[in-house]
């Protein structure tokens, strides 16, 4: 049959082979991309799955009485995946209207997103819940929101103390692998010090971008919310202190002597921490940064002030311990101390005078004698060796070094070394050369925190706990052990009582601190008036109360405030009154403090 012959035609066979070859090529290729090459599965998943970071809510901060110092508030970041934007374009004007972003910013953000078209790029931050809902209604593909939290401050206090939260910097990213781009991090104060606890851990989710309800999401890692932190701060007292310090430059630090807990840490001028939240953070930060009174500078732990007469407490204690001073010692004072060409002035008071009155009325001459006796002690071969001993004593009070609190940015202040004087005076110096140290002047520098710590040491009769601002962290049984250790000074407990007596007399009998008198509370205090080269004297006051079982130790430092009793004493006293009685009886004193105006030409001069 012809058909049969045709079937055997070689060309028909070749063509069948061609057909099979064509299908063979297709099948081979299919086998390759479907069975061998395994990239496509993940590429398909990449198409509809979006890798999202789930940011944990940052831990909240409570004050010592359980009141909110810092709360977390929900907000949203607007993100975009450039590749997923609608090809036909979208209503940019409406998007700007809904979210409040400016057109220029949107354009810039989209241009940035274009560089990395497959991953989410941030467009705009801090969308409110309503803005987010309106955006969801618009439903532009490619845009999505990520929930974040921002800070809220119910009392708007403690800018420097609490610090603020910002996006992690490039530098941080390089040095600390535990942070990733876009994370929030505490930049100052408590937020920075306890960032590890407050931050929580990021979660990671693969989100099916086409399922609205999230039912097809794969959680790779759940986010862990930040731990809440209980502060030692008393929010009401902190606010009160900040009010008292308004328009004054300086700092207040109050410590609970029996624990070392910081009750108040106010630096003035301060700023509203709310300013450093949200979109205006950058602008507000720059404004505060350019403020000539430097509100961003936390004077409570960073400034190094001459302690003035409050330092006489230390010299008295050293003198007693060294045996060169007893409570029976009497020295003359003719409105000052004279030795050769040296003259240290003093105010008018009865002369000669004894130990208690010297502390109470803050006699400069008396302490010049004491200080010289310490340095010219025959027990130590030379003045310089004696100076080393003196310096060790001072250091044991926490001066000239960091106390090691949990608060970042603490500075050490300055207690000059023997070498320092050797260099400055070319090795020829003696007790007269450094005589100003007797009254807390000269090269001495200390932070208000150190001064408050001094008050706590005296209140405790010889020891202190490292001052700290956090009482407990959620989920942690106890605080770092170092905060529960007593740190003793080199001065024996028995020598403190006479000094306390002197401080008590200063407030309650015949001294410079009588404004600090509080009925029923045996307040003890010591004023200081620190001369300085830049203008009016600094006004300072250290105090604790009550005399027995003290509950609060406080240091107030007001730059250029004049005599210690002029402004520092009333402020400290009011804070003590508020803390101990819960209210203010002495309205006149409150008015006086609030109305007191201090000029700061050195800051405000343009």
């Amino acid at each position, binding site marked *: 049959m*012809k*058909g049969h012959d*045709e*079937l055997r*035609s070689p*060309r*028909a*066979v*070749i*063509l*069948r*082979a*061609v*057909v*099979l*070859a*064509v*299908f063979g*090529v*297709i*099948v081979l*290729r*299919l*086998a390759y*991309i*479907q*069975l061998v*090459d395994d*990239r*496509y*599965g993940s*590429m*398909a*998943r990449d*198409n*509809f799955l979006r890798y999202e970071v789930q940011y944990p809510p940052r831990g909240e901060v409570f004050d010592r009485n359980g009141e909110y110092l810092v709360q977390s508030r929900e907000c949203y970041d607007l993100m975009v995946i450039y590749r997923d934007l609608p090809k036909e374009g979208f209503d940019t004007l409406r998007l700007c209207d809904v979210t409040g972003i400016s057109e220029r910013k949107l354009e810039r953000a989209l241009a940035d997103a274009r560089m990395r078209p497959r991953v989410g790029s941030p467009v705009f931050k801090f969308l409110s819940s309503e803005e987010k809902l309106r955006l969801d209604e618009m439903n532009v593909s490619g845009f999505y929101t990520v929930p974040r939290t921002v800070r809220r401050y119910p009392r708007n206090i403690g800018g420097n103390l609490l610090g603020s939260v910002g996006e992690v910097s490039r530098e941080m990213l390089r040095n600390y692998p535990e942070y990733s781009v876009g994370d929030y991090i505490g930049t100052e104060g408590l937020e920075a010090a306890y960032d590890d606890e407050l931050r929580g851990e990021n979660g990671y989710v693969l989100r099916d971008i*086409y399922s609205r309800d999230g039912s097809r999401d794969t959680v790779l890692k759940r986010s862990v919310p930040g731990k809440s932190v209980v502060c030692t701060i008393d929010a009401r007292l902190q606010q009160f202190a900040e009010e008292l310090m308004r328009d004054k430059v300086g700092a207040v630090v109050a410590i609970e002597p029996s624990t070392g807990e910081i009750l108040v840490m106010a630096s003035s001028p301060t700023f509203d921490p709310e300013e450093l939240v949200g979109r205006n953070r950058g602008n507000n930060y720059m404004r505060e940064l350019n403020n000539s009174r430097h509100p961003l500078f936390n004077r409570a732990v960073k400034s190094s002030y001459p302690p003035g007469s409050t330092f006489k407490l230390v010299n008295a204690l050293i003198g007693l311990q060294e045996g060169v001073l007893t409570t029976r010692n009497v020295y003359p004072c003719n409105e000052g101390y004279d030795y050769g060409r040296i003259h240290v002035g003093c105010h008018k008071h009865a002369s000669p005078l004894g130990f208690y009155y010297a502390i109470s009325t803050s006699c400069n001459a008396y302490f010049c004698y004491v200080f010289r006796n310490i340095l010219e002690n025959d027990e130590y071969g030379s003045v310089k060796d004696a100076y080393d001993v003196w310096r060790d004593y001072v250091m044991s009070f926490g001066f000239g070094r960091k106390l090691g609190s949990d608060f970042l940015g603490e500075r050490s202040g300055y207690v000059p070394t023997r070498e320092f004087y050797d260099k400055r005076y070319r090795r020829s110096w003696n007790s007269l050369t450094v005589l100003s140290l007797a009254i807390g002047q000269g090269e001495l520098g200390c932070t208000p925190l150190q001064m408050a710590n001094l008050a706590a040491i005296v209140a405790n009769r010889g020891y202190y706990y490292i001052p700290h601002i956090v009482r407990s962290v959620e989920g942690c049984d106890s605080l770092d052990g170092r905060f529960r250790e007593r740190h003793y000074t080199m001065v024996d407990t028995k020598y403190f009582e006479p000094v306390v007596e002197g401080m008590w007399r200063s407030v309650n009998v015949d001294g410079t601190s009588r404004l600090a008198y509080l009925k029923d509370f045996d307040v003890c205090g010591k004023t200081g008036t620190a001369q300085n080269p830049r203008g009016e004297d600094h006004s300072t006051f250290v105090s604790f109360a009550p005399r027995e079982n003290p509950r609060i130790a406080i240091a107030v430092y007001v730059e250029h405030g004049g005599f210690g009793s002029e402004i520092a004493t009333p402020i400290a006293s009011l804070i003590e009154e508020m803390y101990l009685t819960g209210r203010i009886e002495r309205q006149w004193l409150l008015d006086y403090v609030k109305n007191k105006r201090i000029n700061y030409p050195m800051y405000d001069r343009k």
Partner: protein
Amino acid sequence: MTGSNRTVSVFAGVDRVAVLLYVLLSLVGMAAVVSASWDETSENVFSFSHIYVKQAVWMFAAWVVGLVVLLLDRSIWHKFAYYAYGLGIIVLLATLLVGDKVNGAKAWLHFGGFRVQPMEFAKIAIALAVARFMSEYSFSISRAGDLFRLAAIILVPFGIVILQNDTGSGIVLGSFLFVLFREGLNKWICIPIIFIATLFIVSFLISPTTLLLALITVFTLSEGMMNRRWRDCIRYAAALLLSSIVLYLVLDALLPGGFDYYKSLLIATLLSLFVVLWYAYRNNLRNIYVSVAIFFLSMMFLPTSDFIFSSVLQPHQQKRILNFLGLLDDNYNVNQSKIAIGSGGFFGKGYLEGTQIRYNFVPEKHTDFIFCTVGEETGFVGSIVVLSLLCMLILRLMRMGDRQQETFGRVYCYCVAAIILFHTFVNVGMTIGIVPVMGIPLPFVSYGGSSFMAFTIMVFIAFSLDASTRKGLPTYGGRA
């Protein structure tokens, strides 16, 4: 002959396997179109706004038309072949003047509610005309004059379609080469045409290794086919592959990083050619010399394609080819299509579960890229099933052609087989990135009423011609 005494019924003598293949294909296509156009949010599943409902209507209409074709007198196809061709040319010209532009091609006519692509139907007319012309008593495939006239029959509609800017449909007409070869066209005309066409595109290919491997495979296959020395061919291919790998390992050990696999393969191949020539000389097999020559030529050809490319092709065509070859980076469509098919794996993601399809990553997912639905949702297994159905139908059509008693029927059946083969290769090939993107449908599977209807008529004419042969009836008057 069997069945010759039976009462003449519609299905008398019809190849049931072929009809079954056709029905299975249209059902598979239906399933794919449903998946590609499924809208889970829709309330009314059977609303006419759905693409798959339209396709279902078209499918049933086409089945009816197929029956009508079987009912018609089998001689009319021969009788009206030239009239049909003339009508086809007129309609194509009309389309050129008054047609609608879809995706840049002015290849569509509007009839009230629906659109028709006349070229789909014109292909039937051209196939009929080619079959009629080649079955003329005076026709000789080896006579130049006849060949020119035959070429004119094919090239006139080709020209019109190119003017319509519907290059894809035009290139389909190249499939007639398949038929001409079957009818005895000198193979040394066919082979260079095919190679020049292929190399033109393939020469840009990303990986020279792939190119070389493909060339070796093709030439070894063709040699095996021509000389029937399959054992030697397989030995040769295996030896070449093995020696190239050994060479690669050795060279890589000697000069780390200096040699890639391509160079080793090239060296091995060139060396092997001497063996091949010696083999040809010993066995006196002349065609091997020709193959070796073409093999060399095809490698020489590579540098010249650049000129043709930039001077002849239009920008969007250049872009498609460059995209195909991976030289341009906006081949989004093909990428997504490959991702869809590639992510299907062995068993697929499940019917209606394909993410690439559901989430609209695949373009034209119910028409030109319908194969993505198959590949993604039913995986390698489903793809093989669909391809097997098409392959079997094509082979069946070729078998129908071979058992025809008249040249007319044989040529026509081969034309249909060739057209379906070409459509399948180009359509599936572009979805998996081995052919540049051309907008032509996958027969019986892609959504599109006119395409489905035209393919149905096309194959049913072949079935009808085949049925009359098997019943011993003359397909047309005088020559039975």
